[in-house]
């Protein structure tokens, strides 16, 4: 079946909430019903077909074309299916995601995958602050699933995350993995200041030595971490997009903390020449 394609007719002037455009919400609706859906646009509710042209039929496989930063809440509460977006998206991409896959061919705003509990978000571009974090007031951030960012991410990646994995191929901002409860964050380029600040448990893997590590992290020395071998093998088996992890070996400098919170988290700084063989 052809994917259900939404193409923006105009560049929106205001914030456009597209949370309704998920396989869950569109299942069983015919094209007329879909076109007449009302979307929050600025302070108003507007019919979908005033902003989007709609083609295709497969509501399990949604595509959004000519997207821009004004589109927010893409894939919110989604439980299955796929959403592919060509262009940038705004805030809270994939928030409360339970399952399925969201792929963004562009940049994403802040709060990507906040409170997500499953599924996968692939961003082929950069992401803003608070990736995989919890909303202010929430105990936990993401509790499961995978977020993959091929570009860089902003500050407070994985703030309060409970489980799941965030993989950033580019740089991460300050306070990466702050207040983590568990889970894994991998940053393949430089991370900013205060990585792991306030973390209780969890793992932050940095492929490059950061310029700053908080004094409340204690060095455990240079070790061969068996878990890294397992993780990188499992990742590289997950598909070609993770084939880079075949190159990484288990040697790392381990730091544990954050001792300011009696934390048992870890920062693993991979050795520069840490090839598998």
């Amino acid at each position, binding site marked *: 079946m052809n994917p259900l394609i939404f193409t923006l007719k105009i560049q929106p002037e205001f914030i456009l909430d597209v949370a309704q455009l998920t396989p869950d919400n569109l299942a069983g609706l015919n094209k007329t019903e879909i076109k007449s859906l009302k979307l929050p646009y600025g302070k108003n509710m507007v019919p979908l077909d005033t902003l989007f042209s709609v083609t295709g039929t497969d509501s399990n496989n949604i595509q959004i074309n000519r997207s821009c930063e004004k589109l927010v809440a893409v894939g919110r509460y989604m439980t299955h299916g796929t959403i592919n977006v060509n262009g940038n998206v705004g805030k809270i991409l994939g928030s409360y995601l339970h399952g399925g896959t969201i792929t963004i061919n562009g940049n994403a705003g802040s709060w990507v995958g906040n409170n997500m509990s499953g599924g996968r978000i692939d961003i082929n571009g950069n992401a803003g602050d608070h990736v995989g974090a919890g909303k202010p007031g929430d105990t936990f951030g993401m509790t*499961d699933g995978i977020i993959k960012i091929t570009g860089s991410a902003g500050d407070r990646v994985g703030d309060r995350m409970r*489980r*799941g*994995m965030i993989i950033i191929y580019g740089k991460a901002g300050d306070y990466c993995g702050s207040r983590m409860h*568990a889970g*894994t964050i991998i940053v393949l380029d430089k991370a900013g200041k205060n990585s792991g600040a306030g973390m209780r*448990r969890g*793992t932050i893997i940095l492929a490059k030595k950061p310029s700053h590590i908080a004094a409340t992290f204690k060095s455990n020395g240079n*070790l*061969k*971490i*068996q*878990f890294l*071998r*397992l*993780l*990188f*093998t*499992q*990742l590289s088996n*997950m598909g070609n997009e993770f084939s880079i992890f075949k190159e990484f070996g288990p040697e790392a400098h381990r730091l544990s903390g954050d001792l300011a919170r009696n934390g*048992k988290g*870890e920062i693993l700084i991979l050795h520069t020449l840490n090839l*598998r063989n």
Partner: protein
Amino acid sequence: MEINGIFIDDTFAEAFPMKATRIIITAMNLKWAHKAANALRGFASSVIACGCEADIERELLPSETPDGRPGISLMIFAMSTKDLEKQVPTRVGQSVMTTATTSCYAGILDGKQIAMGKSLRFFGDGYQISKVINGRRFWRIPVMHGEFICEDTTGVTNAIGGGNFLVLAKTARHALTACEKAVDEINKIPGVITAFPGGMVGSGSKVGSKYNFLPASTNEVYCPTLKGQVNSELSEEIGSVLEIVIDGLDEESINEAMRVGIKAVCSFGPKKGICRISAGNYGGELGPYHFHLRKILK
């Protein structure tokens, strides 16, 4: 029926339902994976007194293991899931975790799950770390050699135990030589194990005993030294009998294992001291699976 001059008895091997799991042991190299696997399968020849039957299924290439290291696939069979729940954490804890550089993973991912790392994690005394990768939970237990990684649970599947055949030969040397070749051939079949030492039993048993406290006792009709005393199954020239017992995940794999095993034995022929092939048939008292020798070898 004869194969290469060896008479095949018109009988069947009688097998019974079991529960099985498969685990994967990896280590820095195959030598140490073997050491762990051999420790785990020690004293696991028969459920009669060992609690389980276990053996190496095959060696694994690094590309076949979860962590990319060389490994061993090992299967453990028991009479019930409850028995496996008791045996698996105990054996993994005492035999695998104690072996240097090892890790232990589930070899069956679906079906009912029994605890493995889920129980052993407490050895970490609070320093253990749980990691979920691709939906699978692993425990990182800090140990003196570094880190022992153990998967949270392993899956249990229905299985069959007690597929067998008897090799009747002139001397123990003749029987042993043929059985060694048979076991080598059986070990190439996936999904089966031969849990007894060397893959064969020198003291095959029958069900029950004259003593009330014994569930099994010597199979006197196949004991060469009792030929004159009991209603023996052995003719004059037979001086030694060995039994190859096969546990498998399904009937097809046991069929195939028995077929290749018997053919390997028969390839020696009467000139090398092999006289007959028979099977452990206990008159239907032991189990519902009947592997008819002549049907298998057709």
